[in-house]
């Protein structure tokens, strides 16, 4: 009989194996108590007090991050409203919403870390596990998948392989179905992508160049033929960005 802790470790290992290949259908393992999820019937650790608002004296916060969060706090009538922008700022600094990052935000915002945890786990763009520093979100929602996004996602994932610099994710509709299939690379929309674009896409990211400049959404004119009374060249403001 294994301890609950061992069960959790075993479970996590098995989940990793499954996550690596979702096509493999494995029978669902169940624990002796019938649950698929370990630990749900364990009581909370009552020996441990809940984390309090971190003490500024013992929680070092990078000066830039503190200034940015305080800037966000000043914009809202209620300081909790700054949770999303503050967590996003901390994620930019730390790479993900690590316990340390959450601690720092909690310290500046004067809220508990648990509160910020509850927020961070809700939103797709806030990472609660360590990830690669370049995010590649491939849209696999309906319009993009009609245009071949699933193959594109597989190709990007395979091409990125084990490279820990990349955070390749299949994402829900990114609101750019006109350039389907598309991807958002560190916030920059590119499309329509073909499988042949994938190597250059990753090379551009690795080299720190603008990603597939000719396929960036910012350069695209509106599709409606009646919209413009004359032909306009590219936006100067957007052409270079």
């Amino acid at each position: 009989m294994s301890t609950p802790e061992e069960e959790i470790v075993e479970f996590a290992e098995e989940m990793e194996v499954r996550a690596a290949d979702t096509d493999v259908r494995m029978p669902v393992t169940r624990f002796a108590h019938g649950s698929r999820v370990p630990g749900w019937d364990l009581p909370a650790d009552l020996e441990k007090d809940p984390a309090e608002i971190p003490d500024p004296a013992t929680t070092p916060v990078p000066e830039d991050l503190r200034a940015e969060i305080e800037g966000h706090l000043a914009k809202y009538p209620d300081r909790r409203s700054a949770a999303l922008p503050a967590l996003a700022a901390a994620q930019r600094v730390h790479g993900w919403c690590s316990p340390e990052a959450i601690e720092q935000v909690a310290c500046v915002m004067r809220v508990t870390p648990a509160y910020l945890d509850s927020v961070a786990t809700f939103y797709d763009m806030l990472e609660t596990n360590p990830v690669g520093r370049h995010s590649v979100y491939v849209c696999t929602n309906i319009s993009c998948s009609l245009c071949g996004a699933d193959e594109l996602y597989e190709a990007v994932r395979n091409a990125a392989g084990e490279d820990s610099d990349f955070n390749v994710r299949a994402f829900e509709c990114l609101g750019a179905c006109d350039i389907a299939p598309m991807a958002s690379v560190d916030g920059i929309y590119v499309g329509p992508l073909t499988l042949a674009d994938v190597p250059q896409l990753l090379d551009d990211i690795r080299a720190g160049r603008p990603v597939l400049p000719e396929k960036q959404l910012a350069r695209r004119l509106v599709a409606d033929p009646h919209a413009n009374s004359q032909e306009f060249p590219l936006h100067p403001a957007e052409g270079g960005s």
Partner: protein
Amino acid sequence: MAAAATGGRVPILLFTDIDEPGLNTLEVYERRGGYQSLRKALQMTPEEVLEQLKASGIRGRGGAGFAMGTKVSFLPKGTMDKYLVCNADESEPGTFKDRELMQKTPHTLIEGIIIAAHAAGTNRSFIYIRGEYVLQADMLDAALNEAREAGYIGENILDSGLSLSLVVHRGAGAYICGEETGLLDSLEGKRGNPRLKPPFPAVQGLYQGPTLINNVETLATVPAIVAMGGEEYAKLGVETSTGTKLVSVSGHVQRPGNYEIELGIPSREIIYGLAGGPAEGRKVKCWFPGGSSSPVLKEEDLDVPYDFNSLAGAGSMLGSGAIIVVDDATPILDVAMKTAKFYRHESCGKCTPCREGTNWTVKMLERIDLGEATPMDLEIMASVQEHIIGNCLCVLGDAMAMPIGSMIAKFKDEFEAHMEAARMRNVNGAAASDTALAAQGALEEPPGTLLAHQPGGEQAPGAHEGAPGTHRGGI
């Protein structure tokens, strides 16, 4: 219809020269007559502006199609903190019209917000933009700074006595935050769970204060309404659906993109005339008229006029104005699966019918695909959809139930054929591999029965859609 009849130019209000270089800057926007509507509106009393909005008959462009003028009038009078929230969390699959507006002409939206704030008497405003729209949020921030410096945002705007603050708030990737009360919770810094209504946001919304929530396109139309006058605007379109509408066409069409149309033109004209229809030799199998949440229509519905009431009459809805076209080479099961998986991922988990209904719908669709379903499963699936509709705090569950329900109703034969084909594949495949393996003497139990022991389509928790950061994480 009117445009086609006159043979002339389609009336363009929002997309006028939208690709002019620098239109996102205050300088070009003002040169093109920007902020003149605001000046005109500030000469009028709030009641007069409200009258214009009511006369225009404009209905909300975000999805629900509620008359904007009526919505504004729901806000209580009196001096208190009142809020205006612009819903720019454009996450409905297939919709990308607001993106175009915010990126290319952000000042139109800001001007619309100020005029609406004047009419509604609100003193604080927010733009809740989805976190994925980085470029668009940057454009809005830059435009907001320009507007603030020019005195359009702040205390005593243009010496009218009107004061308004505006904050661009970036979300972090959650479809549910496009639902108005989920958006309010998210804006207050919480998980984006919808609230019970009533009280409606107009009475008790953001920070418990009266709140007006409008879509980007609705607010961006306001300057045009004030400029041309509400009654003149109401002459566009058809009686119950006035004005122009941005439609986002995507999927199997040759020219996907945003088009500004006059409401009431035949849908065929949009899909075939503007967007070029499906590729050569393909036909339309089905189409979503208003985002992936709207019930699908078939090819024979292509002549339905594209307006709120006609589409409702055809059993669907105009929604956010996002047309997704599916051609006849695509199995309907794939479309249903994509749709259902999206809603399963995005369900916030607060209400049981939605949380469980979306999950089980996906499981049942996977059973069909694996050939483990029986014809009765279709009926069960249809009844699950019926039990979701109207039984949750918000309409996310309905948004899956309606399209899936309509697919089951309209493509029942195809679902059944798929089911049977998958079943036969299992039987034949198992038999074929049995003989092959039996020849080698390597098989004790046929693999077909092993498969049957597995609960259909059970998936590793957290493994779906390859999105480890899902907010349903930890199920």
